[in-house]
């Protein structure tokens, strides 16, 4: 038999359930205090610096990291619980989400000690926001086509070029980006890119907002003009960024955010149909819940593998592939099922507003963080087809 895919039925340990209660209580307080409205995923106030600090104060940022960097040395399964509860509540996580999920772990692995001591505790306190500088105007899924140059100069590098589709760059304090330090070689077209830590909000960096079809301005164009990055901001091996990507991708791709992005419309549909749905609504809801449950079990299973120190790159790609296709279809299926909801349903307006937003959000879900096509290529490689 060729394929070696396993999704063992990992269960969250008891301590996770205690934590879940704490997170739910915290979020309920924040909602009661008016920090955010869980029914309005389309709100404009997604950047919530004070909320970010309060999450940090709870010890829920960088919670798996070493204590000396401000972390809690808790498990990935505990982090999983915090992430999924925040997502389901539509909490404003934009300011800290990227730093907590991937920038912090990259720094832990590749940054010099003094930088870790400086930045990681601030991430844990919810004080800093990170962006990721990967895509360029002519380099998206094909990461290794990146052209933004980092030219060696005294004590560091001069950066020239443009990053694009950079989420949160307009509020970010830092960016982790890849820049070209050498041309690719004949033998290895992936050679020549280096990962850097970039301090944002400085001369030489211009951030231009880009409007999205949802009406929001989450992503940006970031233009670097002779921007200086010191030597100690190089993360890992010069010219060797391609070696550093794989294991982080499993974290980035298998989390609850990969199938819960449009979850709110399912809740509202259940509310709208009431306690005694007709057969059509019941069947539709049943199928959606079965798929949701299955994806969560797969996602938890991957979290368990990560906790056990494995690198389930193919399994994580499968979770993101079917999870994002599902969350993309979800608003459309909910729309189908909502067609016969009573005009008098008390939450009809909320449901319609949410559907409007979710349908506009849906196209990006199978693009951001690794397109469906890239994921299926990775899965195919895992199957021994490439």
């Amino acid at each position: 038999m060729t394929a070696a895919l396993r999704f063992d039925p990992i269960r969250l340990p008891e301590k996770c359930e205690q934590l879940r209660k704490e997170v739910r209580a915290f979020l309920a307080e924040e909602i009661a205090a008016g920090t955010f409205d869980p029914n309005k995923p389309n709100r404009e106030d997604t950047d919530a610096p004070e909320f970010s600090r309060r999450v940090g104060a709870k010890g829920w940022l960088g919670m798996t990291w070493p204590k000396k960097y401000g972390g809690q040395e808790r498990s990935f399964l505990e982090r999983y619980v915090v992430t999924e509860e925040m997502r389901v509540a539509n909490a404003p996580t934009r300011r800290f989400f990227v730093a907590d999920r991937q920038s912090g772990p990259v720094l832990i692995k590749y940054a010099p000690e003094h930088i870790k001591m400086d930045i990681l505790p601030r991430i844990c306190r919810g004080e800093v926001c990170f962006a990721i500088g990967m895509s360029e105007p002519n380099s998206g899924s094909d990461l290794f086509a990146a052209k933004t140059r980092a030219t060696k100069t005294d004590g560091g590098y001069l950066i020239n070029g443009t990053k694009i589709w950079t989420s949160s760059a307009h509020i970010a304090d830092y960016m982790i980006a890849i820049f070209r330090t050498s041309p690719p070689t004949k033998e290895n077209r992936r050679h020549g890119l280096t990962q850097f830590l970039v301090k944002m909000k400085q001369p030489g960096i211009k951030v231009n907002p880009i409007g999205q079809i949802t009406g929001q301005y989450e992503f940006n164009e970031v233009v670097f003009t002779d921007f200086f990055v010191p030597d100690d901001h190089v993360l890992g091996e010069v010219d060797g960024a391609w070696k550093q990507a794989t294991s982080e991708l499993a974290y980035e791709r298998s989390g609850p955010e990969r199938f819960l992005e449009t979850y709110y419309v399912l809740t509202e549909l259940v509310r709208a149909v009431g306690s005694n749905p007709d057969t059509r609504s019941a069947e539709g809801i049943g199928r959606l819940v079965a798929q949701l449950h299955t994806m969560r079990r797969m996602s938890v299973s991957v979290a368990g593998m990560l906790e056990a120190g494995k690198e389930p790159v193919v399994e994580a790609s499968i979770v993101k592939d079917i999870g994002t296709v599902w969350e993309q279809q979800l608003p459309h299926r909910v729309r189908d099922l909502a067609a016969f909801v009573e005009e008098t349903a008390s939450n009809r307006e909320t449901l319609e507003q949410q559907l409007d937003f979710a349908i506009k959000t849906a196209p990006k879900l199978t693009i951001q963080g690794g397109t469906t096509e890239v994921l299926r290529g990775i899965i195919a490689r895992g199957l021994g087809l490439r």
Partner: protein
Amino acid sequence: MAESDNIVVETAEKIFADLADPQTINHDKSGSWQAPLWQALSEAGLPLAWVPDDLGGSGASLADGFALLNAAGRFAVAVPLAETMLAGWLLAQAKIASPEGEMTVLPASPRDRITLDADGALSGRARGVPFAKAAKHFAVLAHGKNGVSIALVDAGKGRIESGLNVGYDHSDTVTLDKVQPVAIKAAPGGVDQTQLMLMGGVARSLQIAGALEAMLDISVRYSNERVAFEKKISKFQAVQHNLARLAGESAAALAAATSAADAIANAPSFDDAVYLEAASAKIRCAEAAEKGSAIAHQVHGAIGFTIEHILHRYSLRALAWRDDFGSESHWAVELGKLVALRGADELWPLVASR
């Protein structure tokens, strides 16, 4: 492919490999392989895996039995292993000893009902009963005035209208007309028709997941052998992406089925959470059977559509198994009703409790 990590599965896989090689049995139109295979499985105690020692079985755990069913799905063999296991499990719930030989369970659909009258006789019609024609005994769940009973019935006492499912396995209609059982006892608290259907549904889910694993395996292998347009077809991106989707469906089926099996094996009772797990497994695995077998056939082209090729042994069975113990439509309606009854704000807590 889940490597076998317990002795029950190892034993079964060895027997299947020795006596149920898919290529060999596919060419054997007489079915002469069935008797030796059944004998070997029986000698190893596998059909009565879920029956405790003192009731005539081999006393394997629920978890081991579920893993065995997953392995059986990977070989998609046409013998009533799952059915006899379920029958033995049902009888053991009422402490009724299991006889030797093939068994199956009645009813096999949530829409059918067997009744128990005041004289202790059983009546009713059960449709789509897998392997009824091959069975020597039926394990019957019946409804009487005093609640639910479990009975052992001599298969010769029922009237059997024989039929075949889309996988060419027996799926028969069994009519009981005032049949006196060999043994009958009241079902213990909690054991009812819904629980029997969920157990059967999870068994089928594991078999479907196993069949999908096998379909993925033979499809990948075929794509690495077959040459078209001067390349192996595995080098075409369209084929690669189809196979990646098949891997996804196979993985989803396996995850849903093993999670449900784990839930049942460790649950003190069939509460809402176990219901979510078991119903979801049947729904998701049935959906995966449809999508996955379509892709496996697409990759194989015309050769996979021939009766000589082994693919249909997996694809048609996976599709047929969707119908047993409640289809995905049935469970989706029931699960949807449960979710609606609990209310919108209880949906996430239910999902997150797993």
